[in-house]
C-alpha cells in the first residue's frame, strides 16, 4: 500500500510540476501582454494627472504664469465663489437630465433592436451609429442652422403661422441639453442593446405565461435583468455629459457655462493653477458620483438576487 502510494506520488509530481510551470508561464505571458497597456495608462494618463494635481497647488502670476507653491487657494476660490459653484451645479444638472432622457429614449429603441429578427437589423444599427461618424463640433454646427433665429425650425414654424416672434433656442440650456442628448444617445442605445440581447426571450415568455402583463414583466423581469447594462449606459452618458466641451460652447453661447469650457478658458488665460484645480474638481466629482451610483445599484442588484 505504501509502495503504491509512493509510486502515485512520484507520478503526480512531474505532472503537477508541469502544470505549475505552465501556469507560471501563462502568468508571465499575461503580464507581458498587459505591460504595454499598463505602461500607456501610467505614462499617458496617470503621470500627467499627477503633474496636473501638483499644478493645482501652485500660485498664478500674470507675468510669470505659474509660481511654485503649496497652497489651497485655487480650490478655496472655486468653492467660495458663487459664480464657479453655479457653473458646477449647472454642469451636474445638465449631465443628470441628459442621462435620464437618454435612458428613457434609448431603452425602447434598444429593446426593439435587440429583439428584432429582421434582415434590416444591421442597417438600423448602422443608422444608430452613423452620427458617431461626424465630429461633435460638426453636429453642433448642424443644430445651429436648425435652432438659429432665422434657422430651419423658426422659419418652418413662422411659415406655418405657429409663431410670430422667433423662438430663442440657440444659446440656451435647452439647446445644450438637446445637443448633448443627440451626441450621447447612440452610446446608450448600443450599450443597452447588447445587454438586452443577452437576456433570453424565454424569461419574458415565462413571465407572460405566469400571468404578468407587459408592464409587470418589464418592471419585475426585464429591468432587473438589464440593470447592470442600464448602469453602464448611464455612467457612460453621465461622464460624457459632465465633460462635454464643443456642444456647450457652440450651442450654449457665451453666457452659458459648463465645467469643460471653464477648464479650457483658464488654460487659455494661462492660469494653469486654477485651470488644474477646476479640472480636478470636475474629475473628482465625476468619479465619486459614478462610483457611488455603481455601488448603490450593485447593492440593490445583490439584494434582489439573494433569496
Amino acid at each position: 500500500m505504501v509502495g503504491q502510494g509512493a509510486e502515485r506520488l512520484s507520478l503526480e509530481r512531474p505532472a503537477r510540476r508541469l502544470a505549475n510551470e505552465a501556469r507560471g508561464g501563462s502568468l508571465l505571458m499575461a503580464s507581458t501582454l498587459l505591460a504595454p497597456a499598463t505602461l500607456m495608462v501610467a505614462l499617458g494618463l496617470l503621470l500627467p494627472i499627477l503633474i496636473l494635481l501638483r499644478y493645482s497647488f501652485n500660485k498664478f502670476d500674470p507675468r510669470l504664469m505659474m509660481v511654485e507653491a503649496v497652497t489651497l487657494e485655487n480650490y478655496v476660490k472655486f468653492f467660495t465663489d458663487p459664480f464657479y459653484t453655479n457653473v458646477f451645479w449647472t454642469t451636474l444638472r445638465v449631465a443628470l437630465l441628459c442621462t435620464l432622457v437618454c435612458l428613457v429614449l434609448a431603452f425602447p429603441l434598444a429593446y426593439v433592436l435587440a429583439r428584432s429578427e429582421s434582415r434590416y437589423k444591421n442597417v438600423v444599427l448602422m443608422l444608430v451609429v452613423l452620427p458617431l461618424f461626424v465630429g461633435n463640433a460638426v453636429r453642433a454646427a448642424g443644430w445651429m442652422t436648425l435652432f438659429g433665429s432665422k434657422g430651419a425650425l423658426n422659419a418652418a414654424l413662422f411659415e406655418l403661422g405657429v409663431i410670430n416672434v422667433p423662438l430663442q433656442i440657440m444659446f440656451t440650456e435647452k439647446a445644450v441639453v438637446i445637443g448633448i442628448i443627440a451626441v450621447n444617445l447612440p452610446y446608450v442605445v448600443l450599450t443597452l442593446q447588447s445587454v438586452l440581447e443577452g437576456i433570453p426571450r424565454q424569461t419574458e415568455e415565462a413571465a407572460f405565461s405566469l400571468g404578468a402583463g407587459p408592464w409587470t414583466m418589464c418592471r419585475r423581469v426585464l429591468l432587473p435583468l438589464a440593470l447592470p447594462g442600464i448602469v453602464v449606459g448611464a455612467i457612460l452618458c453621465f461622464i460624457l455629459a459632465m465633460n462635454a466641451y464643443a456642444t456647450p460652447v457652440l450651442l450654449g453661447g457665451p453666457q452659458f457655462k459648463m465645467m469643460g469650457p471653464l477648464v479650457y478658458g483658464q488654460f487659455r488665460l494661462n492660469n494653469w493653477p486654477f485651470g488644474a484645480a477646476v479640472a480636478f474638481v470636475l474629475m473628482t466629482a465625476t468619479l465619486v458620483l459614478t462610483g457611488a451610483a455603481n455601488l448603490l445599484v450593485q447593492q440593490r442588484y445583490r439584494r434582489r438576487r439573494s433569496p
Partner: protein
Amino acid sequence: MAAIRSVSRRQVLKGAAAITSAGLAELPLGGAAQSKGKIVVGTWGGDYARLLHKNIEPILINDGWEVIQDQANDPERRSKMLAERRLPRGTTDIQGLSALGMFQMHDAGVIDAIDYGKLKNAPNLLPSMKYPYGVGHIYSGKVGVYNPRLVDPAPKSYKEIFDPKRGDKLGIIDIQYQYTLVCAALAAGGKVDDLEPGKKLLLACKKAGARIYPTNEAFAQGLKTEEFGTGVMWKARVVQWQNAGISVEAIVPAEGALAYVSGFVIPKNAPDKPGSYAYLDAMLEKGAQEAFAIDMGYNPTVTNAVVAPELNKRIGFTPEEVKALVDLDYGYMTQNDVALKEWWDKELKG
C-alpha cells in the same frame, strides 16, 4: 527555451542593426548638406499659416532654407515658450504673436532684442512697427461696423456705437473681451489704462439688451441675419465679410481706432538665429507684404509695399487715421488680464 532565447538575441541584434542604419540614413549627407538650415516658425493655424506658406516661405525655400510650421493658438505657444525658457536650445526659431503677446514674452524675459542692423528690409519698416523686442508684420484697427439697412445715420465714434439706446441692435464678441473693454472705455471717456468707465458703459448696454456672440464667425452670422446692426471689429475682417456678401460698412471712430498689430519675435534659445533673421527679412519683402494685404485684408508694415487704391480704400487708414491709432497699454493689460476676464464672465455675462 534555448531556441526562444537564441531567436530573441538574434532579433535584438537585427533590431540594433536596423536602428543604426536608420540613424545613419537620417544624417545630413550629400544634398542635405547644401541646405542653409531649418527654420521652425510658431504660428496660428488656419488662414494665417496658409498665407505664410504661400507668401513668405517660397522666398526662404528658394534661398536654400527649410521651413517648418509649429501651429497652435497664441496662449498655447506662449506657454510653450515660458516652459522652454530654461532649455539651452528651444524648439522654435521665430514666433508669431499679437503685439500684446510680444510684450508679454519680452516682459517674461524669454525673447531677444531685435538687431535691426541685421535686417536688409528694416529701413522700409514703419517706425511704429519697430518694437525693440519684435517686428510688426501686419496691422489693422478696431473700426466701427454697421449694417446700413438697419443703422441710419452711420455711427461716427465708439461712443455712438456703445450707446445703451441701441438696445439689442448692438453686438459684442465674447473672445474679443480685451479690445471691447478698451473701446468701451474710450467711448466712455476713459483711457487705455483706466477701463472702469468702459465697464459701467458695457453693463448699461447689456442691460439695454446688447447681444453677446461667442466668436467672430457667430458675430458675422448675426450681422448677416440682421439680429443686430452695429458693433466693433478689425477692419480686415470687415473686408472679408463684405467679400462674403454681408451688408456691412466700416467707420474709423472719432476717438481713434484701437490698433491690432501682429508680429514676430525671436526666442532667446532659438536654435538657428540666422534663420530667424532670414525669416524676418522675408516677411518684410515688398511682394510678401502686398500679398498679405490682398489675401488677408491687413495693412503692410513697410513703406515700399504698394496697395491698389481700391483695396486701400477698404483696408487702409489715412495718414491722419494712422497717426490717431490707439495702442493698448500692454503692461496694464498683462497685469489685469485675468481680472478683466473674470469681470467679463461674472458681471457682464453673468
